[in-house]
């Protein structure tokens, strides 16, 4: 029901929306919860386990009951809290966890079977007969379990992530936070004030309060005008600070366009990481309930929520409102409602000594015996100081007291301290360096107290930041409510029927009794055994009640029982926001070659290797399969000339008087003897003696070397060199820097390669194998390396990257004149396998130089990284899996990933002898070849081995050979 004269909603802007297919209307400024209550809708969901009818319980972000699925266009989001959804025109909301409808839910049968569904029932059932588990129990449980359902289409929404830095982060924009921000801002600090609500004000938005003898809203507006005008203040509303981390870092989730009319390019949410020199937690407090028989009916709400809906939204949740509480604060609900003209039928107070003079009936020493009304509260039956009573009431405001919201202060594994005076947990002193708690979050509940507390926290922060406080005239506090908080703790009232502690996960006092009975008395055990506190609301309205009840039941003090661990996030955080920008191509940078556009226009499919896009093969007209193209390209290189962009390989420029010495330290073989103008192949090890990478290093000039690395290991090797330089060779005369990007480099391979280069440069070239020379191309100094990855006479030509595209074009054109052309990654791989050359398929991180047959490259005359570790027993000698070549019989296919077995034993794990790392069809040899690791492989050359690929159903007898299948003597290489 809607009141005419109260509420901050905009009555000039009606909003139409749907709930469970029924059309309703509300106003701009309403939440889904307030709009539903205004329309008299009390039933909003079914409880998790027992499917009991439930209604709205709170106002704000701690709602345990009203979990909603929202459909906005193509976007479907489950498990949203109705009290946090701001309605806008056309949204469609649905209740969850019911079938076929909310009012008539078949699964409500669970409520009838509740004695069998208590805490931990699933640990004691579903075990017999065994075969029922997979076919019956599991599918049924899967269908029944869970809360809400996801859309099956990919998420199309766009969110963003951002960083913010400040001197002071104030978490919470109520009286404490506002005063803290004001004080710090007036002192000149850079302040961020964040609040999860749509506007700042905290309790001032929900309560009838006066500040300086005028409605609190006036004071609030004046303060906001001041704060908005200050350039050093950033106000972030609709922003929940969700986590506290090391070094003054906080996570926060901002609802940018979420739950608003779709607006152009505004992101849905923004995930913030905020770094603050100091922070003040002023997150307020949350009210808690009391457990009594059937205390979960629709219409039973927290007392502050009942008056909050009236004061902020002009919505009356019932026509005959009652209050049940153990404290004075809840009386405000009765007084606010009566002042608004609502019928308050009774105040029920559990205390014997509470005030009894109100404008409505007051009962003392109340014990609630039961409630009635399945789809909405209708009656209460209770005992009081003077007898028993049966009360007709459709809305009960319930209050067991207030819990300071100290969650963030505990995110670094700190535990709060129990305070008997307010019967609540408060933050311990110095829980987190650089964080102060203020206001209700610190257990200071009155409005004036909160303001003072916030100001004091800011002044303390100014002292620790060594900044001068504002003048005394700027620190005057206004007149505000300063009532004393009077409470007599009450956690549960005895009952034979179920009394709810955790509404969200359907945990009752009986469940906690059972946990204690079975020995799960630690609060961490009780939590997991009963699932109390493990629902999406993380037990915000239940945890303290549960542990206090546990303490009583197990005969301990509350302080002794303690709390469970608080973990981020404080409130549900969408993964789409945390991963904003990371979908599809956003996942990693794309790296493009200077020849990319040309390759694409030649129709080459691109593959991704270490973030680079590389052409796979260059199909020509008439070719129908990739193999056809690949075979042709291999033939091209072996008989004419092929051109390939190899810019992706890492190139590291190394200079200095100690450069040669450094290379000797990094590589296993000796580089310092390499003459100028020569190139040498080398391998480098990790500290643990395993192979890190291989490559060639060229001696370019005096004290000047160029190292190459494998494409995918480029940054690894660079990091390795940086580390070795800084950690072991810090005082050496040495300079290293990556020049991978600076040079575009092309392989020109084949019998006609030399002719092509001479054609390009217009001058003869006489470079022996593993030589280097500078080459003048017009005004450009290019570099030529005679090295080969194909086994043919081959050169790599490097130019500054700005000329890469142009050079590639010229090379392709020239190659054609020699009956050659471009070749891609597939052919590159076949060519190198035919020559037994290695890639990281073989150097996969678990092989040694010994395994690769490269022991001769381990110099005995010098120390090098990994030398000692490589000599450990077990890393060399008999039993190691050694690199071999495998030849398949003509017409048989073999594959990488296949395993190797003796010919006379079963192909099972116990008989495994090794595995295949690379395989290809070799057009040069007319059959499949492979490189593999085989136990004691080198002494098995000439023998047969059984190759089995269990996934692809291949079973082939192969010949074990020397891995260099083609041109074993290297004649073509050195020609």
């Amino acid at each position, binding site marked *: 029901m809607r009141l005419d004269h109260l509420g901050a909603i905009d009555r000039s802007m009606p909003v139409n929306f749907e709930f469970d297919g029924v059309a309703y209307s509300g106003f701009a400024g309403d939440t889904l919860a307030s709009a539903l209550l205004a329309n008299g809708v009390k039933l909003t969901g079914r409880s998790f386990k027992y499917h009991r009818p439930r209604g709205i319980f709170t106002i704000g972000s701690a709602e345990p009951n009203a979990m909603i699925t929202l459909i906005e266009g193509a976007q479907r989001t489950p498990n949203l809290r109705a009290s946090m959804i701001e309605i806008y025109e056309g949204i469609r909301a649905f209740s969850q966890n019911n079938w076929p409808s909310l009012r008539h839910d078949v699964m409500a049968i669970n409520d009838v079977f509740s004695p069998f569904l208590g805490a931990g029932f699933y640990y004691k059932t579903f075990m017999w007969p065994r075969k029922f588990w997979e076919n019956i129990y599991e599918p049924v449980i899967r269908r029944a379990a869970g809360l809400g359902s996801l859309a099956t289409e990919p998420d199309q929404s766009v969110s963003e992530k*951002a*960083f913010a830095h400040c001197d002071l982060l104030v978490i919470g924009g109520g009286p404490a936070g506002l005063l803290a921000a004001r004080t710090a801002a007036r002192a000149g600090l850079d302040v961020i004030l964040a609040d999860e609500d749509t506007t700042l004000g905290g309790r001032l938005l929900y309560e009838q309060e006066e500040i300086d003898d005028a409605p609190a809203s006036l004071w609030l507006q004046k303060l906001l005008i001041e704060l908005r005008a200050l350039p050093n203040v*950033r106000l972030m509303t609709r922003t929940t600070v969700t986590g506290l981390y090391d070094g003054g870092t906080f996570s926060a989730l901002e609802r940018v366009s979420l739950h608003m009319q779709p607006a152009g390019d*505004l992101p849905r949410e923004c995930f913030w990481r905020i770094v603050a020199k100091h922070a003040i937690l002023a997150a307020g407090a949350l009210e808690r309930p009391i457990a009594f028989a059937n205390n979960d009916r629709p219409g039973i709400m927290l007392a502050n929520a009942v008056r909050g809906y009236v004061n902020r939204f002009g919505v009356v949740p019932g026509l005959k409102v009652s209050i049940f509480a153990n404290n004075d604060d809840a009386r405000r609900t009765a007084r606010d409602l009566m002042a608004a003209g609502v019928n308050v039928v009774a105040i029920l107070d559990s205390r014997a000594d509470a005030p009894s003079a109100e404008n409505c009936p007051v009962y003392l020493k109340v014990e609630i015996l039961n409630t009635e009304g399945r789809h909405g509260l209708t009656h209460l039956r209770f005992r009081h100081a003077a007898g028993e009573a049966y009360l007709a009431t459709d809305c009960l405001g319930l209050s067991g007291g207030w819990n300071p919201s100290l969650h963030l202060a505990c995110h670094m594994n700190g535990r709060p301290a129990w305070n008997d005076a307010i019967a609540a947990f408060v933050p311990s002193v110095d829980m987190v360096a650089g964080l102060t708690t203020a206001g209700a979050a610190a257990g200071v509940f009155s409005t004036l107290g909160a303001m003072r507390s916030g100001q004091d926290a800011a002044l303390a922060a100014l002292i620790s930041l060594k900044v001068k406080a504002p003048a005394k005239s700027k620190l005057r506090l206004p007149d505000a409510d300063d009532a004393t908080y009077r409470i007599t703790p009450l956690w549960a009232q005895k009952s034979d029927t179920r009394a709810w502690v955790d509404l969200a996960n359907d945990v009752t006092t009986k469940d906690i009794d059972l946990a204690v009975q079975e020995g799960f008395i630690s609060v961490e055990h009780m939590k997991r055994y009963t699932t109390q506190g493990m629902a999406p609301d993380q037990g915000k309205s239940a945890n303290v009640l549960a542990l206090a009840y546990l303490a009583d039941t197990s005969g301990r003090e509350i302080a002794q029982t303690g709390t469970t661990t608080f973990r981020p996030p404080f409130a549900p955080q969408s993964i789409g926001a945390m991963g904003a920008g990371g979908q599809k191509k956003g996942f990693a*940078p794309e790296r493009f070659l200077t020849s990319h556009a040309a390759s694409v226009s030649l129709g080459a499919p691109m593959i991704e290797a270490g973030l680079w896009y590389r052409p796979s093969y260059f199909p020509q007209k008439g070719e129908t399969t990739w193999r056809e193209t690949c075979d042709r390209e291999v033939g091209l290189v072996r008989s004419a000339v092929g051109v390939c962009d190899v810019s992706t390989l890492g190139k590291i420029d190394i*200079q200095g008087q100690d450069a040669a010495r450094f290379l000797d330290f990094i590589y296993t073989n000796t580089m310092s003897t390499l003459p100028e103008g020569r190139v040498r192949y080398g391998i480098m090890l990790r500290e643990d003696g395993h192979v890190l990478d291989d490559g060639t290093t060229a001696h370019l000039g005096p004290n000047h070397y160029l190292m190459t690395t494998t494409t995918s290991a480029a940054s690894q090797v660079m990091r390795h060199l940086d580390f070795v330089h800084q950690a072991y060779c810090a005082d050496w005369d040495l300079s290293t820097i*990556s020049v991978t990007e600076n040079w575009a480099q092309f392989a020109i391979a084949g019998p006609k390669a030399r002719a092509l280069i001479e054609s390009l440069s217009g001058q003869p070239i006489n470079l022996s194998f593993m030589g280097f020379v500078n080459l003048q191309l017009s005004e450009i100094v290019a570099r030529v390396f005679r090295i080969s990855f194909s086994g043919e006479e081959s050169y790599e030509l490097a130019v500054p*990257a700005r000329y890469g595209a142009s050079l590639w074009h010229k090379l392709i054109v020239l190659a054609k004149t020699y009956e050659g052309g471009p070749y891609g990654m597939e052919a590159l791989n076949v060519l190198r396998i035919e020559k037994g050359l290695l890639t990281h398929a073989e150097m996969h991180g678990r092989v040694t130089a010994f395994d690769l047959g490269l022991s001769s490259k381990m110099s005995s005359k010098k120390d090098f990284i990994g030398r000692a570790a490589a000599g450990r027993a077990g890393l060399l000698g008999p039993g190691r899996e050694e690199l071999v070549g495998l030849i398949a019989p003509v017409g048989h296919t073999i594959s990488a990933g296949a395993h190797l077995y003796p010919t006379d034993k079963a192909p099972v794990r116990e008989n495994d002898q090794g595995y295949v790392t690379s395989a290809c069809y070799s057009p040069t040899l007319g059959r499949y070849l492979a490189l593999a690791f085989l136990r004691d492989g080198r002494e098995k050359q000439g023998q047969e081995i059984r190759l089995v690929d269990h996934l692809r159903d291949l079973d082939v007898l192969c010949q074990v050979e020397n891995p260099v299948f083609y041109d074993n003597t290297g004649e073509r290489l050195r020609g």
Partner: protein
Amino acid sequence: MVSLIPTPPLTVPPIFLGACQLATVDLGPLASFTPKKGQESALQAYLATLDLACPPPNHAQSNSTQSVLWAGAAQWFFQGPLPEKLMQFAYVSDQSDGWATLSLSGATAPNVLARLYPLDLREKVFGVGQLARAPLMHMASLLHRTKPREFTLYVFRSMAQTAWHEVKTAMIHVAARGRDGV
């Protein structure tokens, strides 16, 4: 004799969005250098004759045509025409073709950068002439504040397209918030 045509890392027209502008910029020759051991003071003396110096970490030092940018441990970038005698005192490596440079300017440039770099870019912390080696999203990068509302972003040449896309997306989101674009 062959004649090769140079191509810039990225050929795109500038973008104007909200109170912000993004454009590619060609800053000319770029080279990294590390002082030779024992030559550190000679190097500083030489640079002083050019009105330059090796700045401390996170700083740049410029004269009218050249800049020296701190780029890492014992490493600086020299931007502009390379002085002939530099190679006497330092090991020099050409970087002219390895980097793409973008210029981001305007009132909301810091807000845009807040979506890209995990850095405190408040002017009092990161002022004119300051720079940082920091990742632009997942890309190795250098960020240099050249004017109060103007920044130069350096990324690897091969990642220029990704960088352009990321900055543009951030500009779109900031512009959509209107007014202050926080």
